[in-house]
């Protein structure tokens, strides 16, 4: 059964664009058009407001929590072309760093796996992607991929650091591969790889016929393959898989929905995909043993009802 355990009164004055739970699932961060970011403690089952972060001068589009080894760190990006990294010290939240080197709205932020350090990728409407990193001494370094997506980049997502390629490259122990995937207004999904300190395009995945809205690289839990979920304005969700030993990616359309698909999100173990679309529904999908994707539950957001998509097949 899926049921709504709670509706959160966020107190936002405008549309909420993103909601992210932290690494431990104890804190919930929401961001809204009203330029604020609100944090809630959800560990008790109740939503206790803990902070209201104001610093953006326009709608805040997306949030990302860093790995807790860097403390309570949250990154946000918004219409005001800024990326702000927030940090909690002794219960109070302050700006740790502000990056404002984009020429247009910043649509997406994503922290890299913690093994790579405190590294953040940001995709902007100016078509570029920035990779911001810190050495920990307060100095921040930014590398910019210009014209990564014409018209604009909508989403970025990092590959898990335990690279399946490690099995393939039987050589000496390497640095964890730095890769991330991005999706943009050019309907393309691109995979980027760092090579000698420079970011180069590794793969260009064509499959969507409209803006790519979200990309999500599945967490790999000991799995020898790469899985990426992408969703688009063309109402489709595509699952891209790569066996980890070659550069070949195969695509499979998970489903064609009746409305725009806004978000895709993987569960912690990477075997459940949550898809949220313009029809105010979130659906959960799971890959069966044979590689078929089936909808295992269907949550109607408005009412918190569910319908079982799959008849009794077990």
């Amino acid at each position, binding site marked *: 059964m899926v049921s709504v355990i709670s509706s959160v009164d966020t107190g936002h*004055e405008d549309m909420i664009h993103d909601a992210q739970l932290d690494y431990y699932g104890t804190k919930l961060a929401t961001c809204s058009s009203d330029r604020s970011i609100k944090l809630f403690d*959800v560990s008790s089952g109740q939503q206790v407001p803990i902070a209201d972060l104001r610093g953006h001068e326009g709608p805040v589009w997306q949030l990302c929590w860093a790995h807790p080894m860097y403390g309570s760190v949250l990154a946000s990006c918004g*219409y005001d072309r800024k990326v702000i990294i927030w940090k909690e010290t002794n219960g109070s939240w302050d700006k740790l760093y502000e990056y404002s080197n984009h020429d247009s709205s910043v649509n997406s932020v994503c922290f890299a796996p913690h093994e790579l350090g405190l590294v953040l990728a940001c995709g902007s409407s100016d078509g570029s992607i920035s990779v911001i990193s810190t050495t920990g001494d307060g100095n921040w370094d930014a590398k910019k991929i210009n014209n990564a997506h014409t018209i604009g980049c909508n989403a970025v997502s990092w590959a898990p650091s335990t690279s399946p390629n490690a099995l393939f490259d039987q050589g000496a122990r390497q640095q964890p591969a730095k890769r991330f995937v991005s999706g943009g207004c050019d309907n393309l999904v691109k995979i980027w790889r760092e090579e000698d300190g420079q970011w180069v395009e590794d793969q260009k995945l064509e499959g969507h016929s409209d803006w790519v809205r979200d990309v999500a690289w599945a967490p790999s839990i*000991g799995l020898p393959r790469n899985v990426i979920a992408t969703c688009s304005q063309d109402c489709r969700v595509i699952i891209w898989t790569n066996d980890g030993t070659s550069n070949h990616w195969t695509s499979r359309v998970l489903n064609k929905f009746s409305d725009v698909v806004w978000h895709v999100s993987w569960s912690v173990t990477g075997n459940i995909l949550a898809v*949220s679309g313009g029809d105010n529904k979130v659906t959960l999908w799971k890959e*069966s043993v*044979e590689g078929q994707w089936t909808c*295992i539950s269907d949550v109607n957001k408005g009412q918190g009802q569910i319908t079982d998509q799959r008849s009794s097949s077990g």
Partner: protein
Amino acid sequence: MQAAMHNMTKVVQDKVSPTHNLPMSINCDGPVNAMDMNKDMSKVVVAGRQVFKIIEVEDDMFVETSNLRVGKPKNINLNYSAADVAWNHNDENMLASAATNGAVVIWNLSKQVKSKQEFVFMEHKRSVNRVVFHNSEAYQLLSGSQDGTMKLHDLRRKQVTLTFMGRSSESVRDIQFCPANLGYFSFAAAYENGIVQIWDMRRPDRCEKHFTAHNEPVFALDWHPEDKHWLATAGRDKMIKVWDINKQPAQLLYVVQTIASVGRIKWRPQRRYHIANCSLLLDHNVNVWDVRRPYIPFACFEQHKDVATCVLWKDPHILLSTGKDYMLHQHIFQSAKRPGDFVIPSGVDISIHGDVCLAYKERTAAVKGKEAGKISMFGRKTSQSRSELFFTQANSSLAVFQQIAEPNTEDEFAAQQMSPTQLASEDVSMTSFLELAKKYRLKGLTTEELCRHNSAAAAAVDKYQVAQTWQIMGNIFCTKTSSTKSTSLQVPRINVTPNAPMDRQDVEKGKAVSSPDNEVEVVRSDNDKEKNGEISTGTDSDSDGESSEFEKNQLADIASGLGHNGDFFFGDGDNETLSYPLGITVQGGEDWTQLPSEAFQPRHEITGPAAPPDRLDHDSLMVAAVESDAVAVMTPIEESEPSEQYLNLNIDCSAFHAGTVLDYTSTAVDIICCFAEQGDIQSAVSMLIVLGDHVRSHIDGESQENWFMSYIDLLSRFRLWTIASEVIALSHLPQVMQLNQSSTSIHTACPHCMRTMERSGWLCDRCKSVVNMCSICHCPVKGLAVWCQGCCHGGHIQHIQDWLVGNILCPEGCGHMCEYT
């Protein structure tokens, strides 16, 4: 005259085909500071530091008609560089410009000479920021200057008739006459100190109203074209504010947040809530806001490459703008970018506990209906488009969903086919993961006991497949070892013969007795008995053929821990099948007793594992069954009915007879790998640890490390540090073990200068002194030291102990009442 005719036809054309307007632009050859239109909106004057031009607005293009910046270069003085420009509303040929040297210049386009300059007022002491003509009094021109005054010029008398001056001499940044139909004598003035004043032209001595609109300079204001009480102001504080100035004090109705200082604002005609703005810096766009939705622009024009300096509405659908990028643009509203349409209205995330968190856009049907009614009432002209409706009603809800396992109220047989939702709940919810992480024992007992314990733990959280696999593992490795160990001493040997229906029935009876609280179970056992009887006859004849095969559920399916409780098909040579609901295994695997052994001939007397005496027979039977399973896994897997998620395994029982020594290690390795591939890293890693040396060498170290890292990562996400640490310690992988050895140093700081001690723990590099000396003997402490955390004093443990026997205060003399625990 001809021009007038031309304009007439143009107006007619516009009325006939209003949709024919095109976006167009012209390069003005220099940064433009301001512009204004003539009354019938056919011409635009653009002015800047190096630009002063009249541009005609054609249907499809701008045409430059005259350049007012003419004359000998030496004559072109500051009077020609305008900060603002105004076109007389009544006299088509009269223009006024404001110069940075404080001059107000009047231009007459009807002059026959090249220079159209008519007259220059030099009344202001500093630069003039704004010039405006009165809406109906053709010869009244108002100017506002940096010197803090506003002057009303009479163009016929060519002199200043009135001077308005606020109480402070703050610079005037903007002045606007109240629209003609709303207030004849009123005008508003914006000051650099954030004050806005409303003046009456008839009372130059003091203002009518006075209020602080912004905390920073006000750069622009605009009267609402329809509502005379509404005044919009904007300034450096990046806000556009809408005031009801009829109230006392002025009431703030709406606040719009922009991303940069606002340079100009202009209400959109016929749209009550729409206002256009351009920014002084940073933002090159011309934005149109709906004041009811103050955070995101309703429409956005992105043509300018540098900041836009001035905006003007030609009509509700056409907007002109000039910019520092030399350009004059005509924007068609239809082609505007609507940022509201591109925003992502929902957010979704799955927490590690399996809760789905979702933010989504609210759509209130009731409001929609109400607005729809409005549309029909006011007719097409004032109707709001649907997009506008949706635009202003932006609101979101946030919900948290939880995957709740359905309480299993049905009987055990129904549980055979778990409902899909229950599958989902097990998949997404991590509660069983947590439970198992806490309950699993990974060391301290024999392999077999660990397996048994873990099996029970898995069964307790309804992970039957994992439980069974643990049992299989336990039995694989305990049977191998039990022959060498003396555990078999406790166990009487029992013979399981293929033709032992009596035995089996006994077993089943025993089973039935052992679970007296479940009547259904007993009934079912009886049913099975009949089936078993049938089968056993077949088995009697066929078991000698050494080729009986049985089909069963794919073990991988079990291993997956998916929660599928499929049927086991256990057939013999006659293709008779018997189904076993394995999902009903509750504890200790009693149900395994129902696995008949007649399908194959046990190759030897089975030595039961260590078990409580009352369950001996069950266990031994179970071993038999387990062995068959184990062999099944060794054989190649063949997919026969993928759609039903069943995999049939073929097993050649000859292996039981032929093989003298069977090595199950590869089986176990396969199972572990299978778990890992299914994403059940917990089972894989736990089994890897428990089975330890049996399997470790058979699995590639790199993947082992990956599994361990993943599992440790997961454990730490659930804050199960102790368990994670135990897993690390038991990993036997150097790369993993070193996790427990990193970051174990404690850094200390010098108590005098608070500088971290880099080189050694007892010498401060900066103070050049030995720190942490014993308070009693004043020597550096080597070996055990204690110090009070309250005052940071301490020393040799023996010294301090001795001291504290007779004293309670710090031996250093600091007066602190030291506390040691």
